[in-house]
């Protein structure tokens, strides 16, 4: 494989290896927190922070970590950053933290993070690892935000950007006392259906591109 540039390491995460669709990793948080746009981007940003920090630190410590105990060391590093994110979110974005609930501590077991540590950061330098983490993280954030927006918009007719600051839009007005437009979309099965539809659209685009080329 030809050596990739930093830009390529970054951009691969946005389409070519976009986590929930291409890597098909991190599906649990993808399905659980995308009830709203806010949940989607909040989870994405928290995951990106952990991913970039753990990738950089693991790439940096690569020469001194003994191969036989590398996975426990990776887990310690990842878990530390996750707890930092959890505490900081609880202190400064309490509403978001409450709505994401247990899924923030569960970032520890998100396979994207350990996957990138093992598959990339433990074999590459600091800068490519940072670019890889940022790209994959932003790809994950983008995917979650799009999925969250569609589900929230179809499900409730509104978009929440940041509830703590009352940032949100009501796109489709609902009659008094009605909470949902199409409740199926904000329930778990809606997440599966929407994820499948998005995967299908991506495959169609990819096939067209392959044919054209």
């Amino acid at each position, binding site marked *: 494989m030809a050596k990739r540039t930093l830009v390529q390491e970054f951009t691969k995460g946005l389409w070519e290896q976009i986590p929930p669709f291409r890597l098909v990793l991190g599906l649990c948080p993808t399905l659980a927190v995308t009830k709203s746009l806010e949940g989607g981007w909040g989870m994405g940003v928290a995951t990106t922070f952990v991913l970039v920090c753990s990738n950089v630190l693991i790439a940096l410590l690569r020469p001194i970590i003994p191969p036989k105990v590398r996975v426990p060391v990776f887990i310690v590093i990842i878990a*530390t950053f996750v707890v930092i994110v959890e505490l900081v979110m609880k202190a400064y974005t309490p509403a978001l933290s409450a709505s994401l609930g247990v899924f923030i501590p569960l970032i520890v077991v998100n396979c994207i993070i350990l996957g990138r540590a093992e598959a990339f950061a433990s074999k590459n330098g600091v800068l490519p690892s940072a670019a890889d983490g940022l790209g994959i993280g932003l790809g994950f954030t983008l995917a979650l935000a799009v999925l969250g927006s569609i589900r929230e918009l179809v499900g409730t007719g509104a978009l929440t950007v940041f509830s703590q600051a009352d940032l949100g839009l009501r796109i489709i007005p609902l009659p008094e006392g009605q909470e949902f437009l199409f409740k199926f979309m904000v329930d778990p099965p809606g997440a599966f259906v929407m994820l499948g539809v998005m995967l299908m659209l991506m495959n169609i685009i990819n096939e067209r591109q392959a044919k054209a080329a």
Partner: protein
Amino acid sequence: MRDQIWYMILVLGLAGAIAGVALAGVKGMTDPVIESYTLEQKVKPSLEKFFGPAGIDNDYIADRVKLELGKDDLGRMQRLTVFKGKKGAEVTAVALQTAASGYGGDLTVLTAFDLVNGTILGVKTLDQKETMGLGARTADDTEPFIQQWAGKSFEGGVALKSNGGEIDAISGATISSTAFTEAVSKAVTLLGERNAEIMGE
């Protein structure tokens, strides 16, 4: 050298130690912020609801005291936060913040007591890490499990029906219900044991 046992132990041990120090630092920074948020957003509205009808007229948030309860198994000092509700100069109601170990971690509960009638004024979950849809229902104030506490006498102690008491558990969430009841029960016990300190200035 990287294959030697002592080296692996050293690296893993160092990683753990550095992580521990870093987390203690972050926790020290965020704890006061989280505490003031909890006081402002969760404790205050609940106490207004519980103490308001009981005719309490002091600033019970400012009048809170912390009692030391001794150290737990890990050597950490356990503290009890007490909110005193006064009518004039007399303490007629108190609220105690206690915790018990639930399904996913500590379940922190605020219990308000009416000292005149010997009844519970109300309970509120302040922090929980229970399962969504099951134990996490303890965080919902409209849940029958939470609402059943108000008006119950606490003088004979509190217990779940399965333990001979009169509290209905949340079905499917026995561990969380037990932990919640244990936290309230702890508050009842402490109210008796540390009565002098709770009632004193």
